[in-house]
């Protein structure tokens, strides 16, 4: 059992690298393909989540726990980017419908 644990962790890290790499490829496919702008924003959000997962696996593999701060900062930036892009999509929808944007409100 003392030998089995580290070897199992090593194997699962390799498999996790592979799975996350495939996930990156699929997400980039949706990012390039996505029929609407909102699809691309969803893909960008998913890319940030995959980056967090990849940094976590890398940090487990190399025992470099300083990368955890990078993951938390990436989570913050990803959230703010998603919120900002959602606002852009929303404003674009208002402009396309010729509705005056609520420029003074700011609470939408």
């Amino acid at each position, binding site marked *: *059992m003392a030998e*089995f*644990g*580290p070897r*199992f*962790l090593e*194997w*699962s890290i390799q*498999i*996790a*690298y592979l*799975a*996350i790499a*495939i*996930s*990156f490829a*699929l*997400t980039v*496919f*949706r990012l390039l393909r996505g*029929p*609407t702008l*909102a*699809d691309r*924003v*969803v*893909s960008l*959000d*998913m890319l940030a*989540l*995959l980056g*967090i*997962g990849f940094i*976590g*696996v890398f*940090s*487990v593999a190399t*025992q470099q*726990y300083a990368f*955890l*701060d990078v*993951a*938390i900062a990436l*989570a913050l930036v990803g*959230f703010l980017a*998603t*919120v900002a*892009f*959602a*606002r852009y*999509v*929303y404003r*674009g*929808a*208002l402009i*396309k*419908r010729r*509705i005056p944007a609520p420029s*003074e409100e700011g*609470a939408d």
Partner: protein
Amino acid sequence: MIEFFGGILVLIGAAFSLIAAIGLVRLPDIYLRMHAATKAGTLGAGLVLIALALESQQIEVAARAVSGVLFLLFTAPIAAHLLGRAGYLSGAPLWSQTRFDDLAGKYGSDGRRLAGMPRETLMKDAPDRSD
């Protein structure tokens, strides 16, 4: 033993990330894609961070990892809600076999306020900013 549980968590987290990415490609419209990306993607990243917390065996690393997981769990619904609302208002098409669209015709010409809902209930605590 801790390596074993850490490896299990890393594997499950990576599997959820892969399922989320497959759902992102395979599902038919943006709302279903968002369902995959938000829930399964958050769970994947969160499980990997929990594995990191378990594996490090240092209390400060574990605290940072758990705070990162909590941040993900708090922000994912907000981002998904904003994106879904913006996507619906921008006219992203629904799946052809969608049966119910409860919001159909309820956003009106305004694009901001749900029609048919009295203004008082919606803006009860907010000051009047409509004009």
